[in-house]
């Protein structure tokens, strides 16, 4: 079985982890077009190459990010989400409301 290097718990069988989807940039939900939103919700690159993904180490409830190759399945890097998400995220107000 594949071994995954958990930034918190070290090398573990991949069966201890839960895949959480690709790390993607969400468009501003109140400002983007329906088109852009549908793209974000349903469509994927799904190409061969390195992708950044959410992975959860279930026994410790720890989410981290793994950089994985989608054909070789090699995991080249795993790191704490704070490396990529540094600031507190805020959302733009709903325009319909602010208009009203």
């Amino acid at each position, binding site marked *: *079985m*594949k*071994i995954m290097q958990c930034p918190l718990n070290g090398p573990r069988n991949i069966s201890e982890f*839960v895949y*959480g989807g690709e790390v993607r940039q969400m468009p501003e*939900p*109140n400002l*983007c077009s*329906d088109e852009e*939103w*549908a793209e974000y*919700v*349903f469509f994927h690159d799904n190409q061969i190459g390195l992708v950044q993904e*959410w992975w*959860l180490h279930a026994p410790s*409830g720890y*989410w981290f990010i793994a950089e994985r190759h989608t054909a070789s*399945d090699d995991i080249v890097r795993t790191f704490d*989400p*704070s490396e990529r*998400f*540094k*600031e*507190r*995220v*805020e*959302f*733009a*107000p*709903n325009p*319909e*409301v602010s208009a009203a």
Partner: protein
Amino acid sequence: MTSTRLPAPMGLLIDRGQPLTFEFAGQHYQGLAGDSIASALLANQRWLLSRSFKYHRPRGPLTMAGQDANTLVQLPDEPNVLADRFPLTAGLRAEGQNYSGSLDNDRGAALGLLGRFLPVGFYYRTFFRPLGVWDQWEKFIRKTAGLGHADLDFKPQYHDKAYRFYDVVIVGAGPAGLQAALTAATAGVSVLLVEEQSLLGGALSYHQFDADGERTAQQRHALVEQVQSTPNIDVMLNATCNGWFTDNYLPVIQGNRMHKVRARECIVASGAYEQHVVFRNNDLPGILLCSAAERLMSWYAVKPGQRAVVLTGNDEGYSTALMLHAQGVDVAAVVDLRPELHSPTLAQALAEQQIPLMQHSTVFEALATKGNKHLRGVDIRRISGRGQVDGHSTIIDCDLLCMSGGYMPAYQLLCQAGAQLSYSDERCAFSLSNLPDHLHIAGSVNGIHSLDKVLADGVRAATRALVNMGLSDGTPETVTCTRVVNPEWPIFPHPKGKEFVDFDEDLQAKDIVNATKLGYRDIQLVKRFSTVGMGPSQGRHSALPTARLVADATDRSVTETGVTTARPPFHAEKLAHIAGRIFSPYRQTAMHHRHLEMGAQMMPAGSWQRPAYYGPAAERDRWVQEEAQHVRSKVGVIDVSTLGGIEVRGPDAAEFMNRIYTFAFLKQPVGRTRYAVFTNEQGVVVDDGVASRLAEDHFYVSTTTSGADAVYREMTRWNAQWRLDVDIYNVTSAFSAVNVAGPDARKVMEQLVQDVDLSPEGFPYLAYREGTIGGIPARMMRVGFVGELGYEIHVPSSYGEALWDLLLEAGKPWAIRPFGVESQRLLRLEKGHIIVSQDTDGMSHPGEVGLEWAVNRKKPFFVGCRSVDIMMALPQKRQLVGFRLPGDSPRPQEGHLVLRGDNVTGNVTSCEYSGTMGGIIGMAYAAVADATPGSRIHIRVDGGQTVAAEVVSLPFYDADNARQEL
């Protein structure tokens, strides 16, 4: 029958002092402890062990190493057992397989004569005209399929698994493996040596690398001695490494256990499969591989025959001949496929024993006794060209033919690891390359065959492994072995056929060629069309000749042609080994046993068991109605501990809740609860619960039973991006919870709660309070799910059982009784509350299920908000509505369809008879046009009839919610 055996040192595995009697095909035999079923039978001159898959031809052992399907026999409770691997036990009863009549007289053998009528792929060409006929033929053909019989009453025994961890794991304990283990061990690392057979030594244990076998024996003794006396080498015998999985993860099957071995470095010294020669009748009992004859003698002291011919394409065959001679077998001839003499020494040795040597010749046809039961002689011809022979034939009588058509590396594990096979025309052999890091090969699997080189290769591989681990700076020099052990073309088609390429599937040379003529040129297509290599031995012997034949027929190189993909497992493995001791975790609330004690019918809810109702299942409706009535009229209690519980704490707690759930939470007052709906990014309702605000910076929110883990994971994943200052804590297991509901609920509570003002003003509907109940610290909420005065009580779970006991005791004066999930479903249905995943499906957005009121779009964001906007802006297709029918109407069931004319407009999601409402009530999806109260929806019920139900506004019961707010 008793068996005669050769004198020691032959018979490494047997205990001559321990005779065992057993039964095969209805006859009694005697063997020895240490025998395999096959060796014991051969010791009794019983050769016919099985019938072939297609033509039902008699078959005997080919490899004596568990590498062919010829020895598959039936045990009383187990089909397809390898007789040459299965250890003999006293009183064992085995049968043949795949015959009609008896193993010795198989009516199915007639198919052999019909062979010419059954060309490869014939079944694609017939049996289907005219339309419908196939259905008849299929029944007949299916009966002929399969080999042994499964024992349908078999009761599994205990199997389990264990992880093991080693620095170096070596697969195969032949000379290369033994040497590699010793070399690796010198660095002090932990070493595991895995050997499939029951003794160490591999080829050293049966083959004589020198004329009289002296040096071989010493060599083996020395290596085994050292390995066994080295403390950091663990040895597993009778253990099969059955696959290679990513990161050197190796399942090793031994006894009733599968060891899941993790190796930092892995060395595969799995050896090579001796190959057969393709000529007419090469499958007769009495024809086996040279190595098989050697194993018979060395391991089991069984004399394989009286008069032998050896057919070989390499020097190894000469040793076999000498060994046979030394053991008193009359060797009539050594037939060498090769044009020129390779080893004068060995030729000389043959001459000294007056063993005739026929060069550049082959066996063109093996001659059989009546019914193809056994070999009686061979027709030898000189080779005149590739696969061609001249007309002059020499007939030699013999009862034994040993053949060696060269070797095929045991490539399976390595190819599973991604290694590539390439064919060398000089050496007429496949070799392996492109191994992943931390995986090494040594010995004959690496194309190295002379003993000293094999040992050197073991050293090299082990040193490479040590270098990888930083334990050696030696740079191991590569070992090269120029010896050619494969003849160029050991394939001799015969006009009458029956020259088998694949014994498992009864495939002859022409079958392979014909597949290519039909246009199936790719090796994979050849396999799929002809089924070559698809049998139990998975191409161990058919892969090489097939590659050669297909390459030849399609004008490609053998490398281009290649072999079909190697997939796990290495050997067929019992499901019991893979399943092992099955772990199916289950969860129980603290009150679980109390429910059982009170006669609850339990129903699975995820990994939980929940009470459906309390009472015998035969009267399900009665109990559900009674329990519901009791809650409406008196007071009931239900265990709701399985609901998820999540604490959200910290300065950003309210902001976080506001982003996760559809409702607004920023201004939710402390000490109040609020309904919480969770939509996913597609805007679909996926969970709901009740959020209590314990403090400005502290929320306690419940989830559905099945949704707890998923909601918790989503919450934590979102905040890994949002970086809000909040702690999210899944306390589902930390709390037990009950709902005490009914007009008398407050009276019951008053018995147990002193430190909280329970008056309607002090503790109103939807309020949250903390206090103690019978001395137990508790969180309490006024909830209305079932539509009566109700208190949800959450206590630390180790008090859960005591809480249950307290309530039932305190409630006695008001005849408190427990109610189950099904009763609760009826009660909430009367109140028109939806259950997520029962009244919603994978597409339901809040608008469809009447939850607009729980969606706040003034706030900037909640998960899925934009999708909800988009979907609610679309013209709505369906609406969840309440409906009712008179009590005597046929009752719709959940899943029944709602129709509008011939169109399906929806389905019933909830439906039950309600004593309280005096009729049938339910919820269903309906066309928006039909959704207004007063209109009718048409539901097709069991039996196909349609009932017209009246759409009514929800809730059915207590529309002004007076009762729950008491």
